[in-house]
């Protein structure tokens, strides 16, 4: 892990856990933490999640034990018990999910004992140890899923053929989480699957509780939720596949092929469906191409994103849209094994070979760019990074302005867009992304 990180593009494990629980239908996050934790998480969400803050019981409404110096010295277990007791009276929920912060973990409060006491009374309550120092918000998502699979899902259910669970998209960290989940759910449903996606409007806690009956789990991320899939397999016996987040026709084709194969669906059925969808995609795209060509909207691109988007956006730009990704920056802190894994994800059909770097710090991106792209020194023929595009987060606007490039925020933080249910997954998601990319190029018309 890096020794320091500039302007982190994520919250801590507690923050990720809180947002994940907020997105879970009927669930109430209960924090055993210092007073400012969720306030700061909310403030970050306010500045980074495409204007989406809170939900049924999120943001500044989350119950929190607000531990003080007294609890640091004498322990906070009594305060937690009192907090939970009153939460049950005041806040109406179907599942109470206790998560812990740095302070209460360092002082060693025995949260499990408190939870067990309430469980014995029949209260629907579980917990996860999510001290902020354990990792970033993507890891907090992982910890919540693990606790859910271990402590909430019914065990020993019979497997249902064609039933799948799908995860790997982190609510609010992926600001397109709703649209991305719904997009994939819809595709799989069209292929005859029954799909549980945990966090959409169509998911419910009673159904989630039966997730153990799925015949297959699909993790649409090389990183987020993979450990949880292993735990799921161990506890409930469901196998899983891991795929990159499928954005646009090429990646979605591969995704459906893989899912179909793992679920034992006739490949011909999958291919027929894909052919239809691709035809629709290109039919819709066709009228845009006159403007695309006449305005010369092909762009050189720097892609900066989390582990999901760095891969998916590059693949889409290179293999579907025909743009020229030159530099790909992973902004997550990744260890060497993870870095190796991700480096292998760039076997692009188009044959392009962008430079791939692992860099958590926004202001260092320009250094990587300069190392790989010749500077102009008055030479007669000069292959400029122009016209250019920076596809990253709103933190990368500074870079885009300095390069005179157009810019679109997709990866967290997204401060300069309002996102509700827009999604980039699937075939149609590819069209949405083209609208947004080309829209950014012509915004000043």
């Amino acid at each position, binding site marked *: 892990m890096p020794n320091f990180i*500039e302007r982190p593009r994520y919250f801590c494990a507690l923050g990720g856990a809180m947002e994940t629980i907020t997105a879970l239908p009927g669930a109430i996050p209960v924090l055993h933490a210092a007073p400012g934790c969720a306030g700061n998480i909310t403030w970050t969400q306010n500045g980074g999640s495409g204007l989406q803050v809170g939900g049924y019981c999120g943001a500044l409404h989350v119950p929190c034990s607000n531990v003080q110096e007294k609890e640091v010295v004498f322990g906070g277990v009594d305060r937690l018990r009192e907090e939970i007791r009153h939460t049950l009276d005041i806040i109406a929920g179907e599942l109470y999910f206790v998560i812990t912060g740095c302070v209460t973990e360092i002082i060693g409060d025995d949260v499990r004992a408190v939870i067990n006491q309430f469980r014995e009374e029949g209260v629907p309550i579980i917990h996860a140890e999510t001290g902020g120092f354990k990792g970033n918000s993507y890891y907090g998502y992982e910890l919540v899923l693990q606790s859910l699979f271990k402590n909430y899902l019914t065990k020993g259910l019979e497997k249902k053929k064609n039933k799948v669970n799908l995860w790997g998209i982190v609510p609010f960290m992926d600001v397109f989480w709703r649209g991305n989940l719904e997009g994939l759910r819809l595709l799989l449903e069209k292929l005859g699957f029954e799909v549980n996606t945990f966090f959409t409007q169509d998911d419910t806690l009673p159904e989630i509780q039966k997730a153990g009956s799925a015949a297959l789990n699909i993790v649409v991320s090389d990183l987020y939720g993979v450990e949880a899939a292993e735990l799921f397999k161990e506890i409930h016996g469901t196998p899983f596949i891991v795929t990159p987040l499928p954005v646009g026709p090429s990646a979605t084709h591969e995704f459906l092929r893989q899912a179909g194969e793992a679920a034992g669906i006739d490949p011909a059925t999958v291919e027929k469906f894909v052919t239809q969808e691709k035809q629709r995609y290109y039919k819709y795209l066709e009228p845009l191409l006159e403007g695309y060509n006449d305005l010369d909207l092909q762009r050189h691109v720097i892609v900066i994103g989390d582990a999901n988007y760095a891969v998916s956006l590059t693949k889409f730009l290179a293999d579907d849209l025909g743009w020229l990704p030159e530099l790909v920056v992973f902004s997550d802190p990744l260890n060497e094994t993870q870095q190796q894994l991700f480096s292998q994800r760039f076997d692009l059909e188009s044959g392009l070979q962008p430079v791939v770097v692992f860099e958590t710090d926004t202001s260092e991106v320009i250094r990587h760019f300069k190392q790989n792209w010749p500077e102009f020194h008055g030479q007669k023929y000069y292959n400029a990074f122009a016209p250019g595009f920076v596809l990253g987060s709103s*933190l990368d606007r500074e870079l885009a302005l300095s390069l005179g490039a157009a810019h679109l925020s997709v990866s967290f933080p997204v*401060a300069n867009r309002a996102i509700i249910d827009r999604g980039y997954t699937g075939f149609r998601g590819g069209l949405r992304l083209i609208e947004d990319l080309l829209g950014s190029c012509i915004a000043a018309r």
Partner: protein
Amino acid sequence: MPINIQNLESPTRENRLGAITGYQGTIKDLVSKASGCALKNRERLFSQTSACSSGCAQGHLSGIRDAAIVSHAPIGCAADSIGSNVQNKWGNKVRNWENQNVKFICTNMTEEDTVFGAANKLREAIREAYRRYRPKAIFVTTSCTSAVIGEDINGVIDELRQEIPVPLAPVFCEGFRSKVWASGFDAAYHAILTWIVKPPEKKTNNVNMINFRGSAKDAITNIFARFDLKPVFIAPFSTIEELSRISESAATISICGTLGGYLGNGLEEHYGVPYVKSLQPHGIAGMDSWLRGLGKATGREEKVEEFIVEEKKRIAPELEEIRAQLHGKTAVVGMGPSFGHNYVRVLEELGLEVLWGATWHFDQQYDHGTCPESSLKLSSAEKDLPVSVCDQQNFEILNLLHKLKPDLYVSRHGGTSVWSTKMGIAAAMVADEYSAFGYQGLLDFGYRLIDTLANRSLAKNLAARIELPYSDWWLQQETFSLLEEAVI
């Protein structure tokens, strides 16, 4: 309690100002008990998250143009730089400055660091902050984690002072020490006062103008110019050079009593720069008091009176029209104490009836030893206003709104007004500290409230379809039933 710049830390507001976060009563009771320092805090049996010193300190300091922040914390405590960055970019934009991200590095404390400490990481991060940004000062902020494990931050900084040629200022702002997040502003200003401000070499006609994002900077510059004074906006969007010279100014004045008291009184005590102790400049009475305070501190009483007369005459006819439109509307206020007690008055000047004043904390006395001016003023009115104090406890606020059913909920600080909308009650959130600033600002704010009340379709439609997370049982309970008795 005098402000001691020899100390490394500023005491919390609970310890220094007798600040409380739990109270229910009336403004007259609150002020009379505070004046005798007889007010005891009441804790809650249930609480919701609030905010912390670290967030406030970092948010404020990261706005200084040429300073860098090194946060010795797990990444979450630095993630709020994303929120601060948005504010900062907005500020850059209104000033036509370059689009620049805040300069902010976090030491990414991990589980291992909580056992073995992370002094080396801190050292490396400070060095890197200097290498990367070439700042004119580096503020090193603490966190709950660095404090609980007892990291020797000062030791690391002391060592590096030999090596790094700009001020290195520790900011002690760990969240668990205080329920009053404004303690973080004091921590930030303590660091500025201790490590940045230099003794005066000359006297200037500058006025230290303590504020947040400074949207009214042009208006203030114009007003002050009439009095031959020049504002220096502190602390966001200032430079370290400007801050180092604020001991030379003719006076200090603030947009917010909570925000400005520590620095204002500190500069007065140590460098003789008079601090204007007045109402906040919101609305007519507030602006009168604020400008007269400034006039008195700088010997410009006559010019100030001329301006006041002129402006009041100018806005009078338009104000009457606005008052007629807002007459009879009822409001509940939920804000920080200084803003809250000032805005009750502002709303009354606009013709509204204020049913309740909730504030996020209450200081029994300011650093200059008296009860907050705005609270005193409010308590001297004929009507005794019902008030409460909670650290943004939304369950209390919503219960209150459910019972009082005002036409309007006027709040400050993100995260509460949306819930009023979910209840179908019109909400006006005062994000900009210069809303209702002075005479013209009062008119503008009046129009904004008229607009807010003019079309309620979104709130109405939303409220009909959205479920609140509160149980029916809770909404029927007495609002303050979970406030414990004060421990004497």
